[in-house]
């Protein structure tokens, strides 16, 4: 961690938190997943599938996603992923636009929200959601390895 930069705590709406808890309890391959990892996958899904903005991101946020903030060395990769998502979305693929980490986190929360809604529909509520999600992962991994 470089001096002078402080990453804010990641948050999610209370509804998202409920969905996340349901996903963590759901008998699938995302069971017991760490909340921050779940939010990262959700955000990646939203970026990859260009999921639309959802205004419920403005709802009341819960800051109890993780009591460990992102400023520890263990989250360095996580921070870069947030940066990469920001680069691919709001920074319009220009590095010089990536000076505000707080905005990066907000952008991440926005995309994570979109992805969580997607997971609710495709993972939780679909009968074969887990299988289809896993097959999607396998296909992507197979094609991109």
């Amino acid at each position, binding site marked *: *961690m*470089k001096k*002078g*930069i402080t990453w804010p705590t990641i948050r999610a709406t209370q509804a998202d938190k409920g969905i996340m808890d349901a996903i963590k309890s759901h008998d699938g*391959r*995302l*069971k017991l*997943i*760490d909340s921050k*990892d779940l939010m*990262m*996958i959700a*955000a*990646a*899904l939203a*970026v*990859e599938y260009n999921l639309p903005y959802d205004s419920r991101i403005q709802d009341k946020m819960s800051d109890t996603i993780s009591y460990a903030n992102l400023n520890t060395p263990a989250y*360095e*990769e996580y*921070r*870069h*992923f947030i*940066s*990469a*998502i920001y*680069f*691919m979305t709001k920074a319009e*693929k*220009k*590095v*010089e636009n*990536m*000076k505000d*980490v707080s905005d990066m986190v907000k952008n991440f929360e926005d995309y994570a929200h979109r992805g969580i809604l997607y997971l609710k529909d495709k993972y939780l509520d679909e009968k074969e959601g887990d299988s289809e999600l*896993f097959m999607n*992962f*396998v296909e*992507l*991994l*197979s094609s*991109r*390895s």
Partner: protein
Amino acid sequence: MKKTGVFFIYGDNGAGKTTLLNAINWCLYGDIIFHGVEQALEVKPNWADENDVTKVRLIIHDDDKKYQLSRVASCYDNKGILDAREIDEKGNVGNSLSEIASDAIVVRILPMNIRNLFFLSENFSNEILGHKSTNSLKNNIYRVSELETIENAIAHLAETESKLAADHTKALKDSDKIEKLTETIDRARVMIKENEAAVEKAKNKIAEHEDSLTKLRNILDNSQHTRELQKQRDDYEAAISTTDNELASCEADITECMQKNYQKVLLIDGIEEYWNALKAANDAGIIPAPINPKIIEQSKKIGICACCGEKIGENQIAFMNERQRQYEEIDKLKFLADGIHEFSNMRADINDAWCILRDAMDKQERQAQIRAGFVEQLELIREKLDDIDEANLPNNPEERRREIKAKIEKWESRRREYAQNIVDWTDAENKAFAERKRLMNSAGSDAQELEKELDKIKHLRDLLITLRDEAEQLIRNRIKDGVWESFKKILPDTQFAEISIDDNYTFNFIDKNGYSSTVSKLCVGEAKTLALSLISTLSNDIGYSDAPLFIDNLFAGIATSHFGDITHCVESLSDKKQIFITYLFARDGAKVSSNFNPAVIKQNIHAIKDKSGICFVEEDR
């Protein structure tokens, strides 16, 4: 000859008087009755020629018929054969009659068994009145009456009774034995039944224990099989558990792989673009690559680059310082430089993740197949285990098995013992049965039947004895009365007042003074008078009153004082029968006993002759 009357046969000693009587007897009966003559036992004298024969011929009248009886003896046959022929009115002699017919003629004349009362020797009084000789009064009475028959019947019954009594005694003994043997047989049969029941019980027990043993064996087999199945079940369950763990591990790997790499594969293209942008920005100095202060410090200290190992000079040191300064100035973007390093291996990470996932999925598939096989086997084992009733398994089956086998051995031993008992008791029964059968067969009848038979015999014998005694008493009384009447008639002046006869037919005389005396006390004349009275009585009673009477030497030993009595007695007898009497007619000078007075005899004979009109017969050789 006249049919009645006295016929005297007189002559010298040895003249043949007695022989003549013997001849008559021999002709009738085939034996010699009078002894005392020379060669009395020989019909034919020893001085006779070998070819000579002895022949006697009698002509007899039987009612209106006339018979010729003859008997011929040779030196080889003293008895000879009686030849009886009938003589018709013209005097022609017919053919020989049969032996039976001949004997019947003799019987009609005088049966042989009573001829002792009619062929009298000179001592006939002693013989008849005595009770010891075969010609005793008792024997004669028995012969001439039915008493002998009754006596014989009594004797026969006594003999039969004796035999029956012996059989009865034996039967009683045998009966005891038979009873004991029957008890033995009954006991043997009871014991056989008891032992048969015991054998059956033992067999049932053995079968029961063998059944238990079989069940136990099955249980043990099942138990062993169960244990094997249980072990297999446990093994399969453990294997399934292992595979489950493996599968869980695979699933965990897959899950972890997905959870950690999903965002990477989703963002890989964008991240690569971002990584390139970061490198470009870094190259453009927008985000100068940071140099580790420690490396800068160390490189400065030793004069050699800690990264490339090249010698560094002041210029290089100045570059490092300038870069450090620029990096610190671009504060807000400097953190992005780390992204260059962070994402440099993203593609490799994805490749690694793919390998991990593929391996995990392959392994998961294999483990799933293995597990399916295990599950299938486990289901089969569980089905088998469900069929086994383990509830009946004893705590200690081997000990239980030994207990049951010991019980089987015990019952088998008992069964053999009972079976041997059956054999022993059957043997005992068979032996007792055979012995009892033998005894029963030998006994002929049992003791009770013998006792009944014995009682009948005894009763019959008692009846006969009573009958005999009563008949004998009657006979004795009649004899006594008849004899006494005759005696008194012959001897009206007798000194005796009463006569009695005892059981042995011994006469006792009681004189007027009350003194008794026996026959032995009588003189010869009295005794002969008594005997002739007796014969007269008996011959009337037995239906042979007309049978001829032969008296040898009638006057021998008789006192002359009794000649008249004897003569009177003979005279009275001759009213109904022929009487042949021999007497010694001594020639002049011949010695005679002092009691013998031929004159007196002649006088008496002539007296008889005058009354009877009989003639003298003189026999001379």
